[in-house]
């Protein structure tokens, strides 16, 4: 099967963030970026399905130059080639604008299956994959925790996570967009051989014109949402912060838990 996986590059969730000077987003200088967590799982799922069915995985990413690093990583673990939506006009989009651009790129090829992550760890719209499915006119499932191909790859039995420990199991006709949840599998690491091979694999750039889109339909200009400011929540509001080295802080905490909170 020919499988596409959409991967987004996002700040490492453990990175220390600073608000940018204009107050509208984070300062990207020196910020470590990684492949979005659920996208790593989507990629692994794509690779497994491609291996099982004999096929290939194509990775797509929308974002600035730095995104190439994420694409290279995906090529190193086994994706065959990559498509990069690099034009600045693509950037800053909400789920509808980003989904429109990715769908246009996907429609140029003939995929049997499109995989995305379930939610991006930065803006977290949880909707880009569903928007892609809408444009392609394919079924979609959000929060996928299991995929089993059936009927000679014409359909799939898909497990969808629901709240508090229950899963929905359904049959979905392919092609479809499956929005993969973290934890579905255990992503592999790149081998040295894979890293070397990735250097020779193609990362093709796609411009808005290539996709038949004009600048007003995509990116910030094509979005209904505009982020006007970001700020840190009031840290430790209500929390008593216990100072000192580990030993001192621990001793104070135990005393508080005994005498003040009375839970020990």
């Amino acid at each position, binding site marked *: 099967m020919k499988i596409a996986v959409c991967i987004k590059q996002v700040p490492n969730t453990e990175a220390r963030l600073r608000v940018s000077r204009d107050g509208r987003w984070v300062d990207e200088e020196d910020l470590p970026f990684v492949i979005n967590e659920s996208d790593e799982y989507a990629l692994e799922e794509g690779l497994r399905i491609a291996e099982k069915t004999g096929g290939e995985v194509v990775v797509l990413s929308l974002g600035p130059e730095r995104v190439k690093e994420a694409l290279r990583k995906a090529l190193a673990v086994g994706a065959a080639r990559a498509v990069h939506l690099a034009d600045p006009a693509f950037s800053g989009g909400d789920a509808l604008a980003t989904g429109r651009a990715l769908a246009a790129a996907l429609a140029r090829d003939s995929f049997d299956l499109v995989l995305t992550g379930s939610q991006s760890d930065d803006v977290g*719209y*949880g909707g880009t994959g569903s*928007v892609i499915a809408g444009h392609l006119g394919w079924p979609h499932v959000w929060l996928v925790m299991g995929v089993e191909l059936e009927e000679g790859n014409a359909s799939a039995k898909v497990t969808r996570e*629901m709240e*508090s420990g*229950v899963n929905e199991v359904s049959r979905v006709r392919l092609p479809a967009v499956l929005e993969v949840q973290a934890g579905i599998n255990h992503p592999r690491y790149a081998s040295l051989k894979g890293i070397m091979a990735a250097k020779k694999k193609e990362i093709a750039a796609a411009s808005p014109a290539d996709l038949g889109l004009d600048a007003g339909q995509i990116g910030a200009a094509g979005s*209904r949402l505009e982020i006007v400011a970001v700020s840190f929540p009031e840290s430790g509001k209500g929390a008593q912060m216990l100072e000192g080295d580990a030993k001192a802080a621990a001793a104070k905490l135990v005393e508080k838990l005994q005498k003040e909170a009375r839970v020990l």
Partner: protein
Amino acid sequence: MANGVWVVLQHREGQLPRISFEAIAAAQKLAAQLGGKAEAVLLGAGVGLAAAEVAKFDLAAVHVTDDPGLRVYTPGAYIGALAPAIQAASPAFVVFPHTYQTVDYMARLAQGIGAGLLPEVTGFESGADGLVWARPVMGGKLQSKVRVRGEGTVLVSVQSGAFPSDSAVLLVEAGEADVKPLAVDLSGVKPDREVLGYEEVGGDTVDLTKAEIIVAVGRGIGGADKMAPVEALAKALGAEIGASRPVIDNGWLPRDRQIGSSGQTVAPKLYVAAGISGAIQHLVGMKGSAVIVAINKDPGAPIFTVADYGIVGDLHEVLPALTEAVRAAKG
């Protein structure tokens, strides 16, 4: 011009979860801001009793479907029912509770009808040029303020706990909102998902809801081989061990230790969170705990906003020190 506020309620076999009442509260607040009353929509088959419960709230109307095609949730059928209704009435906002079911179909509904999409808001205020919405970004480490541009309906989902359900306004004098049938025609809907059934996620052998004390670890622990200090503290406290999702996803602990929206919801008398950042999906599973202690090396971690006591530091130093202090205190 788009006008008015709708709220689409989620239910399970006619039972309304708390977040549906929170969505009513949000829609009422929004409608009051825009000068009007909200209208509710209830999709399903045989949801008359739920409709009567909703009609007690201060709403302009409750639109109710009764179609066997909506008995089992599928995005195709829900979108097939909602899309023409929203397009015909063209409300300014349609409010949804932010649940896994809502997220499953809301974006596609927005795309299908050309509406705006504003997921997981925690509040709004009116500014100089219109409403400014709040929503978390970066896993809750930052709060963003968002403006909606352009014309036409916007679909909004409200985060669990953001609009207290007890702030939803009931109709005074035992009045009732108008319950109106919402005619739907699902004959043209292409079935997109054949639901085969529902299954419990296996391996629920540990019932964390009964634990009096829980020591929970997050990604900050750094690996399955680094669990010893956690086990030692849990033993000293007589606690159960819980975890955030990445710990489970990485296979460092079994799935029945997961706490949060996809895992167990707990409310022990003491919850110690170590190396957990405090994303909303984790917080909803533990914020009801009586006393919360957070240990994190990042002073800006959102877990500190729900904690009673906090220690900023490396958990690999703090946990052993804490174990020692607990042992000493217990004698």
